[in-house]
C-alpha cells in the first residue's frame, strides 16, 4: 500500500535557517523607516495678480475664446462671472451663475458640473481668479479650488488659480 510504504520512512525534521532572513529584515527596516513619508503632502499651484502685457499685444495664436472665471466666494454663496476679451458683455452675462454654499459635497458636485459645461464650450479656458471674502476660511478656498479642478487629474477644468482680494 502507498500509505504504509511511507509510514515507516525516515522522518527527518528539516529546520529552515531563518537567521539570514532576519538579518535582511533588520537592514531593510531602518532603510525604509528613513525613506518613509507619513505625511501625504500635495500642493496646489497658485499665484497672485501681476501686471502683464495688454490684450492688443497678444499674438494671433492666443486670440481664441478663452474665459477667465472671476469667482467670488462668501460664506453664503459662490458667484461665478466669466470674463473674456473675445465675447460681448451680453454673451458673458448669460454665462454667470451662483451656487449657494452648503456643508454637503453636493455643492461642489454642482459647481464642478457647471464648470465642466463652460470648459466644454470654451476648451481653451483654464484660469480662475478666486476672490474670497475676508472671513472665508482657508479650507473653503481649497474646496473651491478642488471643485474647479474637476474630478479628472489628467484633464483639469480650471487648474490655474490666481488668488486676489475682492476689488472694492
Amino acid at each position, binding site marked *: 500500500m502507498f500509505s504504509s510504504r511511507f509510514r515507516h520512512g525516515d522522518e527527518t525534521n528539516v529546520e529552515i535557517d531563518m537567521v539570514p532572513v*532576519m538579518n535582511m529584515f533588520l537592514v531593510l527596516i531602518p532603510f525604509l523607516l528613513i525613506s518613509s513619508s507619513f505625511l501625504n503632502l500635495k500642493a496646489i499651484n497658485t499665484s*497672485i495678480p501681476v501686471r502683464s502685457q495688454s490684450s492688443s499685444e497678444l499674438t494671433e495664436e492666443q486670440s481664441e475664446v478663452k474665459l477667465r472665471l472671476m469667482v467670488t466666494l462668501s460664506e453664503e454663496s459662490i458667484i461665478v462671472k466669466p470674463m473674456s476679451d473675445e465675447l460681448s458683455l451680453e454673451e458673458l452675462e448669460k454665462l454667470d451663475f451662483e451656487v449657494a454654499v452648503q456643508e454637503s459635497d453636493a455643492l461642489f458636485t454642482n459647481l464642478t458640473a457647471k464648470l465642466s459645461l463652460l470648459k466644454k464650450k470654451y476648451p481653451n479656458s483654464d484660469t480662475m481668479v478666486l476672490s474670497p471674502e475676508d472671513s472665508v476660511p*482657508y479650507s473653503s478656498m481649497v474646496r473651491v479650488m478642488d471643485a474647479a479642478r474637476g474630478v479628472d487629474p489628467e484633464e483639469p477644468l480650471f487648474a490655474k488659480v490666481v488668488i486676489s*482680494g475682492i476689488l472694492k
Partner: protein
Amino acid sequence: MSLGNTMKGQKKFVPPAIQITSMMDMFTIIVFFLLFSYSDKPDEFDVSKDIELPTSTSSINYDHALELYLSQGSIKLEENVIGTIDGENVKDLDPDHIAKSPLAVAFTAKKQSLEALPEGLEVAEANALSDVEVLDPSDPHILLFCDRDVPFRVINQVIKAAGSAGFTNFQLAVMEQ
C-alpha cells in the same frame, strides 16, 4: 589530567531554540507597511501642531521652495518667526502701506539672500557645494503651510507682503485626500 577527561563528564551544550516565527511575522508586516509608505521625498517639513492642513484632491507634488508657515497666531518663514497674528489681522501691518511693513521687509531680506549666489555659480553647482539646497532665484516661489481655519483676511495680507517682495507664485500645501 588532560582536558578531554574534564569535559567527558559534562553534557554536550545544546543551544536554546528561540522561537523566531512570531518575530518573522511581525517583521514581515512592518516591512510591507513601510514599503507602502515609501517615498522618494521623505518627510522634510516640521509642521507644528498648531497648523492643521486642509485635505485636497490635488495630486501635484510640491517643489523645493521657501517654506512659509501660517498658523492662527504666528507667521514663520523657514525657521524664523516674522510676524504675529492678532485676531483677524497681522500685527504691525498697515494694509495701505504693506510694502513698508516689517513682514514685507522680512520677505525682501530673504529674497535678497536667495539672489546672493556667489558670482558665476549656477544653482546646480551651489547645490553640489552646499549641504542645504539652494533655491533658484529666477523662479522664486513659496510653499505655504496654512492652518485650515485661518481667514482669508490674514492670508491676503501675508501674500500681498510676499508679492511686494517679488514672490508672486505660491504652492499651497495640503494633505492628500
